[in-house]
């Protein structure tokens, strides 16, 4: 198995008395799209800054693409790119000049750089604004420029810190589609933090949830959803040809069924504390209804996320 793209070991960062990141252990593999979640002040941005080699850890180690973020931070920044929260651009330069500057700092040969810049303008649909000063750009256009600045160096991994902040729904969807496309087309490893959990759910294959600087969850959203109810509970979603009050009562009477909720005309959510799917199916069939769909209930990321923060 290849080496993980990101690996941290007991990564810790203190700002004076405050523990921003506390003995964080996480792993991200090549080609993954990972959501990095946590409320304000949970240590997400500090972690991303440390992974880019921009902030020195107080203790612990981390590597990105096999390079140590402490001793080889310049190498890390050659293969990794970051779109920080509230990233700024040079308003008095055009979008193309901004990109040239970043390209030159990455020592990309001039001809190659120009070709790459043109490709990127096409990719983010910003070509007609290429020679306009960035000061005239909208928030969404600036965010797209930020994405271009990330991609111009052809990174192996990209960190996005709140990339959809301040974007309207249309721009948010465009950004989401772009990230998914980049991951598929270029096998770009992506680690993104966002408060918009729906976006994470739509974009990411796995989520990392951080709480008070410590990693509390690292799993796919599907697995998290399956395990959301805990060891003692499971939720099943049924779609039936008909749902009667008699059927609901019969299901409630089954030993082990803790609740039955009619979600819509033909839809039921049944919660049990042990696996009772066979008895439930039989009861439905006996009532004269037909099961069109039976699947474990998918919980939203918001539900999962809030579950970890209910005590805070």
């Amino acid at each position, binding site marked *: 198995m290849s080496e993980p793209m990101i690996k941290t070991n007991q990564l810790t960062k203190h700002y004076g008395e405050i523990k921003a990141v506390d003995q964080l252990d996480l792993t991200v593999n090549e080609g993954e799209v990972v959501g990095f979640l946590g409320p304000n002040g949970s240590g997400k941005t500090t972690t991303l800054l440390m992974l880019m080699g921009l902030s020195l850890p107080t203790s612990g180690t981390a590597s990105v693409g096999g390079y140590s973020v402490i001793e080889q931070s310049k190498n890390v*920044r*050659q293969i990794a790119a970051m779109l920080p*929260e*509230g990233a700024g*651009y040079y308003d*008095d330069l055009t979008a193309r000049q901004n990109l040239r500057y970043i390209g030159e*700092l990455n020592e990309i040969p001039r001809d190659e750089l120009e070709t790459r810049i043109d490709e990127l303008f096409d990719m983010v649909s910003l070509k007609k604004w290429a020679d306009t000063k960035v000061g005239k750009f909208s928030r969404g256009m600036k965010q797209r420029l930020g994405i271009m600045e990330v991609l111009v160096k052809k990174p192996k991994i990209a960190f996005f810190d709140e990339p959809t902040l301040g974007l309207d729904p249309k721009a948010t969807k465009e950004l989401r589609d772009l990230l998914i496309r980049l991951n598929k087309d270029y096998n770009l490893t992506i680690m993104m933090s966002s408060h918009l959990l729906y976006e994470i759910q739509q974009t990411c294959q796995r989520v990392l949830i951080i709480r008070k600087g410590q990693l509390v969850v690292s799993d796919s959203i599907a697995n998290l959803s399956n395990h959301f109810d805990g060891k003692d509970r499971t939720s099943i979603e049924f779609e039936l040809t008909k749902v009667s009050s008699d059927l609901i009562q019969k299901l409630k009477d089954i030993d082990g069924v803790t609740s039955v909720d009619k979600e819509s005309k033909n839809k039921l959510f049944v919660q049990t504390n042990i696996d009772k799917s066979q008895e439930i199916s039989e009861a439905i069939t006996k009532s004269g209804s037909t099961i069109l769909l039976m699947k474990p209930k998918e919980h939203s990321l918001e539900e999962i996320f809030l579950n970890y923060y209910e005590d805070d």
Partner: protein
Amino acid sequence: MTSFLVVCKKELYDHLGSKRFLLLFALILGLSFFSAYSAADSVRNQGTAVFLDIFTSSSSFVYIMFMFGPLIGLALGFDAINRERNYGSLSVLLSQPMFRDSIINGKFLAGVSALSLVAVSTVGMMTGIAIPLLGFGPTPDQIVRIVFFTLITILYLSVWLAIGILFSTITKKITTSMIASVSTWFVSAMLMTTIAMILANLIIPTYSTYGGYGMSRTGDDITVYLGDQVLTGDEANDFMDRLEQQNDLQKTLCMISPSLLYQDSALSILSNNGWYSTGVVYYDFAPPEYDMFVNWPHMTTLAAVLIACFALSYIIFLRQEIRVGN
């Protein structure tokens, strides 16, 4: 091209296109232009005209640089770092594969290059205007002095650039660094002589501040008149010693001010002050190397201020934490 030079190129491009730089540059060029005309006129009317007088006569170029040079130096430096921080471009810049010092080094070199352009072009313009007006040019010896004066001017402007960068590194808000920069310039250029006089009199009081003093000498005997009081003998000698110490202290305190250091050096290089060698006093221009030697403490102090300010900015910048929104 290394990242340091990429940053330098971009910053220089920014400076040369920025309104504030162009405005101050135009102001200095304009004042220098009129100063050259006025000085050339004045020099022509003098019996013993010396080309270098065009830089030192009334409303002189030295005074223009003394007063307005710091403003252009500060204008290029006062928001060099905190502007990047406030606009969120610092973290983008630092996310590129380069070391952090490339940013501050690149910015400093770009500033020095722009200021060199200001100094060389204004001195060149003054010289170019004065030659046809006077009908003669500088002698080779005077050319050496003009070059030397230009280098001191670049050093002086660079000191103010370094002071501006220092304020931009230690303060988060651009307005704070601007106020701090302008205040420093005001104290250095306008108030330092008065402050030095007050401090020197506090440290070594001579009791002559308000009433002044008079002095007469008969042979080795000195008599000092302080209002109604008359000092003679040891008392008078003691008073004169204290007065000399006070003057020395005042001069030393004035050396804190880059503006006064520059003014002293520039006037000393460009003026005919007479000189002394092997027991003979010459009332003529000293050899350039003599003036360099005499001005060496001034120049090393200016260089020391420059190095101290830049080194401090460098260390602080390298140690600063990058936080959200930087």
